[in-house]
């Protein structure tokens, strides 16, 4: 540290560069070890052998390519056979794949073997330089920048910079707005309703037959869709479009189960069902997979996607897993001997969302 640095003390001064005490006490890089020639470098027979191996590999590649072309035309695409280890396969596919692999591997292995045995294996040293430019280049760059800045008169007319910056910063907005605005409709209250309406029959998915209470046996589970969206009734002229059917399946799928009424823990659940027959939304309240696994012993419903588990006997409350809310219950009753909906679900079905409340 020099004299004046001590005299004018600066508390924020950088500490003097720390010199490792044993910096000098280090081994020195011994340099490249002596080169050891390979077999093919000193033995002409070995070199010839290596050459033969490489040409054989390239030759195999040519055979593979020809094999692929021949197989493409001559082998029956329907050819199927049982292959050892792999099992029953489409042999045409396997033959094409294997010949292609042979064609490619022949080139690859040949080239690498060539490089490793015949091409020089003496290591070459290339110097490396610091990334940073030297002082002169930096000064020149600074000159170019400042020259450009000044000749554009930016130093005298700052408004030019401000407005140009503003304009450039904003010009993409109309384009972004067009894309964002056109991507989709606003949600509105679309998520709060399903296609279920009062008096709509519960239909078996996929046969589309209406359901009488007698058809629902203890312990069985019936997959249900609303009337008009499944089976024959969905195909007519006035029937829903394929898109509407998909959307109905995505938000109005229901699971129908008959429980022993005494097992049901909640009065509401009993009231909204028919003699222990209860209907629940099949769409998981986590991220919307169909809750399709029903354990008839425990009356648990399990979502196969993320294992949220719902207790059917306790109003489908969550007993395990990442879902929070119970599955919504569809109120049902009997009309003309068939099960029908009393109303839509009382709450939004499916995954949680911000506005859900």
């Amino acid at each position, binding site marked *: 540290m020099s004299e004046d640095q001590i005299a004018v003390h600066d508390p924020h001064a950088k500490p003097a560069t720390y010199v490792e005490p044993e910096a000098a006490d280090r081994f020195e890089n011994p340099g*490249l070890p002596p080169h050891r020639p390979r077999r093919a470098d000193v033995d002409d027979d070995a070199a010839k052998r290596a050459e033969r191996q490489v040409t054989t590999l390239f030759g195999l590649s040519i055979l593979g390519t020809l094999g692929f072309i021949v197989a493409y035309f001559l082998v029956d695409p329907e050819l199927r056979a049982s292959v050892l280890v792999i099992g029953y396969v489409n042999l045409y596919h396997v033959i094409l794949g294997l010949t292609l692999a042979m064609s490619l591997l022949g080139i690859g292995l040949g080239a690498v073997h060539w490089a490793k045995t015949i091409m020089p294996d003496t290591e070459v040293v290339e110097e*490396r330089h610091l990334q940073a430019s030297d002082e002169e280049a930096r000064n020149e760059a600074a000159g170019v920048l400042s020259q450009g800045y000044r000749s554009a008169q930016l130093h005298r007319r700052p408004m030019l910079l401000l407005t140009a910056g503003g304009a450039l910063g904003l010009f993409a907005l109309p384009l972004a707005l067009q894309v964002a605005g056109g991507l989709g409709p606003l949600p509105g209250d679309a998520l709060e309703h399903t296609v279920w309406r009062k008096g709509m029959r519960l239909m078996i998915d996929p046969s589309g037959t209406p359901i009488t209470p007698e058809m629902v046996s203890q312990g069985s589970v019936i997959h249900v869709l609303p009337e008009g969206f499944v089976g024959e009734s969905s195909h007519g002229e006035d029937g829903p479009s394929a898109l509407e059917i998909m959307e109905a399946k995505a938000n109005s799928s229901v699971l129908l189960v008959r429980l022993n009424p005494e097992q049901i823990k909640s009065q509401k659940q009993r009231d909204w069902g028919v003699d222990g027959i209860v209907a629940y939304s099949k769409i998981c309240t986590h*991220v919307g997979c169909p809750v399709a696994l029903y354990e008839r012993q425990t009356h648990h419903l399990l979502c196969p996607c993320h294992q949220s588990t719902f207790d059917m006997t306790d109003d489908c409350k969550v007993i395990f897993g990442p879902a929070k809310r119970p599955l919504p219950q569809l109120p049902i009753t009997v009309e003309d001997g068939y099960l029908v909906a009393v109303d839509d679900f009382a709450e939004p079905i499916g995954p949680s969302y911000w506005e859900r409340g």
Partner: protein
Amino acid sequence: MTTIPQGAGAVRDQSEAATETTADAADPKLPPPVVWADERLGVAKGFGLFKKVFPDHWSFLLGEIAMYSLIICLITGTFLTFWFVPSMGHVIYDGSFVPLKGVGMSEAYASTLNISFDIKGGLLIRQLHHWAALLFIVGIALHVARVFFTGAFRKPREINWVIGTVLSLLACIEGFAGYSLPDDLLSGTGIRAMNGFMSSAPVIGTYLTFFVFGGQFPGELIIPRLYIAHVLLLPAILVGLFAVHIFLVFWHKHTQYPGPGRTNNNVVGFPLLPVYTAKAGGFFFIVFGVTALIAAVVTINPVWAYGPYDPGQVTAGSQPDFYMWFSDGALRLLPGWMEFSIFGVTFSPQIFLGSLVLLPLVWIILGAYPFVEQWITGDKREHHLLDRPRNAPVRTAVGAAAISMYLVLAVATINDIIAIKLHLSINDITVALRVLFFILPVIVFMVVKRLCLSLQRADRELVLHGTESGRIMRTPEGRFYEVHEELNEFDRWHLVQHEAQRPLSLTAGPDTDEYGVERPVGPLESMRRKLSEFYFKDRIEPVTPSELAAAHHHGEAEALPGGQARAIKESVERADETAGLRSDDRT
């Protein structure tokens, strides 16, 4: 150190090689096509590029696997676009796959069946595409690990590290978009889950899903939109960033592992022409060939077995492709009680934390790491020599701990499969994994750090005492000992070349100024000091020449039975004094 001592052999071989070339082609001339091109483009000026040197190491091939898989994906993917119909329009299947004849499905699914069963060789291209995509991401993951554990991300390569992390994120999204396209039951379930976790986004969730899906789920826009993202948008960004990534490798010149003759100021390896052209070009064909081999014999994503997507159906054991496992696993582990409603709005952190937050967070942490480490070390020098992972114990341990966290999440995705195969309770597995997520990283960190330190100690031991020669000597007094052979200078250099980073408290000078007044340390700086302690407090210094000289004085320490007691006593003393562990707690 600008002049590099060269092995005499290397010098000889280089001169030999030089004379050989000149003898073979005494008066080389450019071939006419190159002359033609040179007259128009001046290409001859750029031929110096072919002399560029690349260092050799198997771990440098991991990135190449990713690069070549990307190219295979581009080739096979282009083929697939000729037949794939990215539409959710409803059709009745009438192709040659009998079990699905007459079944209603989307055009996307029907055309995927068409590719698989009615286009000659179409299934091979589809399987090549899918396998190459998986290999692409495996390659990326291993490459990231290699770059991380060897410290290749250090200055001046931070920018390329950030580009690489963006590439790896895009690769995962690209993969997800790709396997969603066939619109089969499995991939449709994935899109359903995507819709679900997007709607969990605070404030904008519902709008987000309605804009992305063009309305309610499923709508009929998501497949065409994913398609254009998959075949144009993401590949364009991927290929563009990838080009920059590769250009920067050329620009910076490749890093190299430390070794004799290798310094921070040189690159030692083989020239692009002919050796690297043959090796790297050949490796492309090997990767392609191995992918073809796998595609030929191992079925991947048999969409015909899953059936068309139906929002009311699902199969048990629905897993995404492996690179999305960690996110799906997080969705499985996060407990439902985290969700709450307040002021009429719903927060679902158990959903958005595992998806919308986790995905970017992983990559932000990854991208930020070089800058954080540089801040902690205060090391602003350029680094072109790689670290051996053991020589950076805390970095290696942090990386291993992060991988263990990732693996816990990934394993959580197959909790149902584990439960079935091992006859365990899925609830117990899930709870155990929740606990492991927090505990395992700590254990892994401690174990890996200690392993690194022990390996360094073993290196020191080897340098100080050499290798056992198997020769037993008898001294005139009758004592036996085994002769240890000193390492030669080339082997030794691998073990002594590195620097042991020291904590800032040691390197940044004293905490007090020359008047004995404590220097003011801001909260940020004090955190930096603490982190520096955490990183470098425990360290093993490499052997110095004087330590080696001192060890030689102990010459007869390796005595066998004749002087066993003394030998043990001596070796214990020696271990104490040369174990080399510097822990600033203990000094």
